[in-house]
């Protein structure tokens, strides 16, 4: 799980303005929760399914009911506990979604993005930037434009 979370968080931090960072951090948290669910449910459910009624030789599986009760309890408590605390965690981290831009701010950001795109054109003409990097940065600045569209 840790690997998946680290990967998701690293990706989210790779190239993000503040609002995009928050958006991606929320996405990373969702990935973390999905991973957690898989880990949390996958193992215990396996245990229950594999806890046969009898053991080899014909004897009753020792404390089978207790094992299932504890397993289900752990699943329920950890899922419900995390489910209830996740909103609080997100609030504490101020992962509240995007802050709307005022008209003035949107215009200024667009103007700045346009200047950056113009500079990218110049750098492309000078052959100083790899194609993939150009595409990535253009996508980034075009996203600023899209954010202002209804």
């Amino acid at each position, binding site marked *: 799980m840790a690997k998946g979370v680290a990967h998701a968080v690293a990706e989210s931090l790779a190239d993000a*303005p503040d609002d995009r*960072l928050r958006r991606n951090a929320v996405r990373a948290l969702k990935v973390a929760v999905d991973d957690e669910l898989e880990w949390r449910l996958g193992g215990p459910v396996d245990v229950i399914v594999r806890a046969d009624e009898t053991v080899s030789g014909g004897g009753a599986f020792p404390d089978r009911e207790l094992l299932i009760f504890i397993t289900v309890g752990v699943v329920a408590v950890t899922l419900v506990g995390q489910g209830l605390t996740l909103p609080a965690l997100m609030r504490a981290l101020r992962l509240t979604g995007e802050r709307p831009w005022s008209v003035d*701010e949107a215009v*200024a950001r667009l*103007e*700045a993005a346009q200047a950056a795109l113009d500079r990218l054109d110049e*750098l492309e003409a*000078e052959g100083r930037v790899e*194609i993939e990097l150009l595409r990535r*940065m253009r996508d980034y600045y075009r996203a600023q434009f899209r954010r202002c569209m209804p």
Partner: protein
Amino acid sequence: MIGGAEPEGEEEAQPAMSYPQLRRELIDVERATLLRLRNEGLLKPNVVTLIQRDLDLLEARLQDG
């Protein structure tokens, strides 16, 4: 162009920019645009501060990396 043959007689091409170099360059362009808008009286200082903060964070992350 990058990876292409160098035409004879042209100046030697500058090396391709790395991601951090390019990002800083573009952040500087954005900052310059903001300052121009502010100096022309088209942008309120508090709006400049908001956007500058985002640019500062972006730049700080480049330094951390």
